[in-house]
């Protein structure tokens, strides 16, 4: 593995039919990073959740919008940034309800953000109003000393 940083970018229309392109992109990068199939499946799912949220919430299903994913691979980690120019939101205001509460409220949502947090080592939101929303996630590579 080269020690320099490598950057990959993907930009697709904000349509859920492109989630499969996004997952293939991420999974190829995870394979290059040397992630095991199980670890790579986690990376793939976390990015799917992040992008599905942008498509549904930030862009309100407007498929004429664009969504960008930037992946940076270095010796220590894979870093993913998902960028959109849609509606900003404050992740701090989102309450994490217990699963049984969601079930009795007959909700179908509320699982994505908790999944991202368990699947990745770091999850950060950065909102620059009027400019862009960015979700940055990091998954560390296990060191084989």
């Amino acid at each position, binding site marked *: 593995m080269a020690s320099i940083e490598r950057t990959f970018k993907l930009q697709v229309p904000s349509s*859920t*039919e492109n*989630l*499969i*392109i996004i*997952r293939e992109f991420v999974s190829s990068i995870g394979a290059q990073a040397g992630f095991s*199939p*199980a670890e790579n*499946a986690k990376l793939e*799912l976390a990015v*799917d*959740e992040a992008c*599905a949220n942008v*498509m*549904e919430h930030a862009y309100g299903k407007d498929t004429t919008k664009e969504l960008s994913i930037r992946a940076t691979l270095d010796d220590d980690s894979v870093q993913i940034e998902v960028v959109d120019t849609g509606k900003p939101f404050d992740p701090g205001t989102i309450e994490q309800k217990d*699963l*049984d509460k*969601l*079930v*009795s409220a*007959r*909700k*179908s*949502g509320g*699982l*994505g953000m*908790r*999944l991202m947090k*368990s*699947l990745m080592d770091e999850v950060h939101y950065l909102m620059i109003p009027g400019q862009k929303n960015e979700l940055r996630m990091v998954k560390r590579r296990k060191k084989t000393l």
Partner: protein
Amino acid sequence: MANPFAIGKSAQEGKSILALEGYLDAHTAPQFEKAVEDEFEAGRIRIIVDCSKLSYISSAGLGVFMSFVDEIREVGGDIKICGLTPKVFQVFEILGFPALFDIVDDIPAAMKKYEESPVKES
């Protein structure tokens, strides 16, 4: 083509079997939602979801299980889940689904589960 997902439907001993195949994500979850809704509205409230050919699931797919099960249990039915591959099971587990759903190995085990406990005990 771009997002291969399919649902096979069958019935066995008064249970409805929905066999999921391929990728269940935010794009294909509405198909699954419709299928569960159709069963429920036709009064077929004992559902088995066979995931043995399901290669991927995201929260949009999990949300379908979550949003229907309460309603179905209220009328004495249930959704039993079977055939999860380790990869897919991992996602159910992270979210704590095993505490809320009967998750068993295969269709015969799901049938047996319906004998023992028609509605999951909580």
